[in-house]
C-alpha cells in the first residue's frame, strides 16, 4: 500500500528550547496586536518595578514648597495639594492595579475552570446546584455586587480582590460550562469513550486543553476589567483608602481641585486606560494566536 502514501513534509525535531524561542520569535512576538500590547504594557511595568530606585519623590512624601505644581521635568504628572508627586503616586497605584488585576484573573480562572468543568461535564444535580448559585450572583450588576461586598468586608486590598473575584467567578463558570457542553458531544470525545477512557482522562486530555484558550482570553479581559473596577471602588472611597495611593483615589483626591489643578485627576486616568487597552490587545492577540486555524 506504499503506493498510496503521500509524502509528508519532513519535520525536524528541534529541542524544546529551540521550539520555544522559535515560537516566541515567529508567532507570539511578531503578532501585531501582541506587539502593540507589549509596547503599552512593558514600559509601564518597568517603571512600576523600578519606581523605588528612580530619582523622584516617594509616593507618600509631602513637599509643602511645591504644592499643586503643573507637570514639569521634576514632577512629570505635577503635584497635589500636599506637594506629593503625582507620577510616583501613580506608579504606586499601578502596582496595586496590577496586583488586583492579576489576582482576580487568577482566582476567576482557577475557580471558573474547576467548577465550570464539573458542571458541564457531569450535568445533573452538580450542574443544577452550581448553576443556581451562579444565577444568583449574576443577578447583581457586577460593579454593584463589588460595592455591596466591600461595604461588608471593609476597605483595603484583600477585600477589594475578593469582592471583584466573587463578581467574576460566576461568569467564568458559565463560559467554561458552555464550552464543555459543546465539546462533550464532539466525535473525538466519543472516540476516547469507545476505548473506555476515564473521566479524568477526558477532562484533562480533551476538555481542558480545548477550553484553555478561551479562558485565558477571558482572564486577560477580566484583569483589565478588575483594574477598572478597583479604580472605581477607590474613587467612590470604598476600595483602597488614602494615604495608600491607588489610581482611583488619586483621581478622587484631585476631583476637588479640578479647576485649579486638572492634572491631578486626569493624568492617572490616562495610565489606567493605557493598561486596560494593553491588556485588551494582549487578549485579542492571544486569541488569534491560539486559534488553530492560524497556525
Amino acid at each position, binding site marked *: *500500500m*506504499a*503506493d*498510496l*502514501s*503521500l*509524502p*509528508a*513534509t*519532513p*519535520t525536524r*525535531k528541534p529541542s524544546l528550547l529551540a521550539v520555544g524561542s522559535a515560537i516566541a520569535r515567529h508567532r507570539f512576538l511578531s503578532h501585531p496586536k501582541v506587539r502593540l500590547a507589549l509596547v503599552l504594557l512593558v514600559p509601564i511595568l518597568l517603571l512600576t518595578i523600578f519606581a523605588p530606585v528612580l530619582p523622584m519623590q516617594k509616593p507618600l512624601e509631602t513637599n509643602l514648597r511645591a504644592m499643586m505644581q503643573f507637570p514639569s521635568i521634576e514632577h512629570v504628572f505635577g503635584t497635589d495639594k500636599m506637594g506629593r508627586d503625582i507620577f510616583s503616586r501613580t506608579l504606586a497605584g499601578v502596582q496595586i492595579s496590577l496586583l488586583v488585576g492579576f489576582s482576580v484573573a487568577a482566582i476567576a480562572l482557577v475557580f471558573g475552570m474547576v467548577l465550570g468543568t464539573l458542571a458541564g461535564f457531569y450535568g445533573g444535580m452538580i450542574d443544577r446546584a452550581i448553576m443556581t448559585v451562579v444565577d444568583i450572583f449574576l443577578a447583581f450588576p457586577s460593579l454593584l455586587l463589588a460595592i455591596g461586598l466591600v461595604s461588608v468586608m471593609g476597605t483595603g486590598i484583600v477585600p477589594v480582590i475578593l469582592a471583584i473575584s466573587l463578581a467574576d467567578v460566576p461568569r467564568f463558570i458559565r463560559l467554561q460550562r458552555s464550552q464543555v457542553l459543546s465539546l462533550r458531544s*464532539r*466525535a*473525538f470525545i*466519543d*472516540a*476516547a*469513550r*469507545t*476505548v*473506555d*477512557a*476515564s473521566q479524568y*482522562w477526558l477532562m484533562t*486530555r*480533551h476538555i481542558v*486543553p*480545548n477550553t484553555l484558550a478561551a479562558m485565558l482570553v477571558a482572564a486577560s479581559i477580566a484583569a483589565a476589567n478588575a483594574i477598572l473596577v478597583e479604580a472605581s471602588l477607590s474613587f467612590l472611597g470604598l476600595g483602597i483608602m488614602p494615604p495608600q495611593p491607588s489610581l482611583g483615589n488619586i483621581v478622587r483626591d484631585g476631583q476637588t481641585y479640578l479647576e485649579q489643578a486638572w492634572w491631578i485627576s486626569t493624568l492617572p486616568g490616562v495610565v489606567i486606560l493605557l493598561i486596560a487597552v494593553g491588556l485588551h490587545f494582549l487578549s485579542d492577540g492571544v486569541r488569534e494566536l491560539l486559534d*488553530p*486555524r492560524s*497556525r
Partner: protein
Amino acid sequence: MNYQAPVKTTLLELRNLHTDFQTSTGTVKAVDGVSFAIERGERVAVVGESGSGKSAMAMSILRLLTHPGKVAGGEVLLDGRDISRLSEGQLNAIRGRLVGTVFQDPMSSLDPVMRISKQMIEPIMRNLRLNREQAREEAIKWLGKVGIPEPERRIEAYPFEMSGGMRQRVMIAMALSSRPQLVIADEPTTALDVTIQAQIVEVLKTLTEESGAAMLFITHDLGLVARFAHKVAVMYAGRIVEFGRVEDIFASPAHPYTQSLLGTIPSTAMLKSERLPQIPGLPPDMRFPITGCAFKERCAAAHDRCCVEAPRLSQCGIDHTAACWAPHGLGEGATLKAERPDRPNRPFEPDGSVVVELNALWKQFDTSRKMVVRAVNGVNLRVHKGETLGIVGESGCGKSTIARLLLGLEKPTSGDIFIAGLAQMVFQDPASSFNPKMTIGGIVAEPLVVRAHGSKPERKEAVRRLISQVGLDPAFAERYPHQLSGGQRQRVAVARALALNPSVVVADEPTSALDVSVRAQIINLLVDLKQELGISFVFISHDLLTVRYIADRIAVMYLGEVVEYGAAEEVFADPRHPYTKALIDAVPVPDPAIESRRTSTPLQGELPSPLNLPTGCAFASRCPMATDRCRAEKPALPTHDLARQVACHYAS
C-alpha cells in the same frame, strides 16, 4: 437522451470568465478563464470536485459573490447582452426575473423569521406586475406545482416548520414563479436524501421543461448528471477541462480527469470483485499559480509538454471539447485502470463465528417535551467474523443510533448487544473527530495509552506501523489534524480505530464528506484492511452504490426497523421490499443510457416523524402497495437467519 435542441439560439454565454478571492494568504483564482454557452431550454450540468470553482463560476454570472470574491475579467452574455458590466440596479432587474437561483442548503436559504408567503409574494408582485391577491394565487399555484401538500395552508408557514425537502421545493417555487429563462441551481439536492433528491430532480426537470427555461445545474454527483443533463461541463482547478453532450461525455470521455472520475464510482454494472480504480493525490492549491496542465500530478498520461504549457479546450468530436495534450486522454474510450488488480475485493465466506449480535434492540430518546423519539425498534442483526454488514436507509432511520449503541456510546432501552472482542469506530465528519490540540501520533496512540498497552517506545513503533498501514507517511505523526486533507484525516481515523486490534470496526458514513476522487482511495483502503486483518465491518451509508460494492450483506432500515436483509448483490439485483425497491430506484446511475430508460416514479412523501409511529407496517404511509392489512398488522422479520429476509406482507 432523446433531446433535440430546437433552433439553436444561445441564451447564456460566458467568455473567458475570471473570478478571484483576495485572501490574506494570497489570491485564489477560483475561476480561471471559463467559456461556454447554454442554449435555450438546455440543461447544462457542471461537475467537479469541491473547490474546483463551480459555485464561484455560477455566482459570478449574476455577481452574487460576496467579498472577497470578485469577477476579475471576462464577459457574461445573456441573450446577447453583456451583463458583466451592468450596475447593481440594472442587474437587480435581471436577478430573480430573467435568471432564477436555487441554492444548496435549503435549511439556511430561506429567511427564518419571515413567512413563506411574504418571501414569495413580493417578488411575484414585482416581477409579474400583479397585485397582492393575484400574486398570492400565483404563489399558491407554484407551491402546488412543486409538490407541497395543502399549499393554501402551508404558504403561511415559517421555514422552520418544514423539512429540508419541503424547503427546497419552496426555493424552487420561488425561483420559477417569475418565469425566468435561466435557472441556476447550485447543488440543489446535495443536502437531501436519495429519495427526496429523486423527487426534487423530477420536479425541477418537469417544471423547467414545461416553461422552457434553461438550467445551469451544479453537482458533484455524476449519476445525477446522467439522469438530468443535456450537456456536461467538467471543471478542474477553476477551468473547464471537458465540455460536451452527456452521451458523449459518458460514452467516450476524452479528458483524463473525466475518464478517471467515471472510473472511480462503483457502478451496478461492475463486478464486486473488481478493484475500484482511484485517482492518486489531491487537487492543486489554487492560491499558487499553476504552470502547465493543472491535472499533471494526478494524470497517468502526463508527458513533458503537460508541465510547461496549459492545454486549451479544443474540438474532439461534435459539440465536444476537451483540454488535454494527449489526443484521447488515457486512451481511446479508456477509463482509469485499477492500479492493483492483483488485490481484488474478495467475497467473504462465513465460517460461522459470530462477532456482533443484536437481540431485540430498542432505543428511545426522551425529548424535552415529554415526547419519546423511537429511534431503534426491535432490531436483530448478526455480523460474522470477516463479514461486512452494510446498513442503508434515509437520514433519521436510526442508522447512526445503531452505531452508537454498538460502541456503547448509548445504552439500549431494551434488548442486548453481544460483541466478541472490541468494537471501534470511524466517524463521518473528519473535522470534528480529532482533538485539534493533539498531534496525529498522539491521536493514534491514545487508545494504546488509555488501555496501557506496551511501553512508550513500543507504542511509538505501533503508531508508525498503523500510520503506514493506512497509506500515510509515518512523518505525519508530527502533524496536527488541521494540517491534513479530508481524505488523510479519514485514513488517520482508520488507523486510530485499528490500534487495539478490534474485532469489528463501525464506519458511519466514512466517505460522505469526501470528494469522489478521494472516496475511492478510502474505500480501497477499507477493502484491503478487511482482507488483510480479517476484521468485520459495519458500514453505514446512504450511498447505495458504495454499500453494494463494499458490503457482503445489507440491512435496509426504515423508521428504526430492519425491513430487508440479505446478501448485498441479491438485494440489489432483486429487491423485494417496496422500500428497498424505491431506494434503489432513486439512486442515479452514472450512465445516461440506463437513466433515460428509467420509467418508475420516485417514492412519494417523506419519512414520518419518529415521535408517533404507526401501529401497522412502518412503511404503510408511503407504500404504493399498502392495504388495510398493512396498516393494522405489523409484518415481522424472522430473527437471525442468514437467508434473505423481508418484512412485508406482500413481498414478492
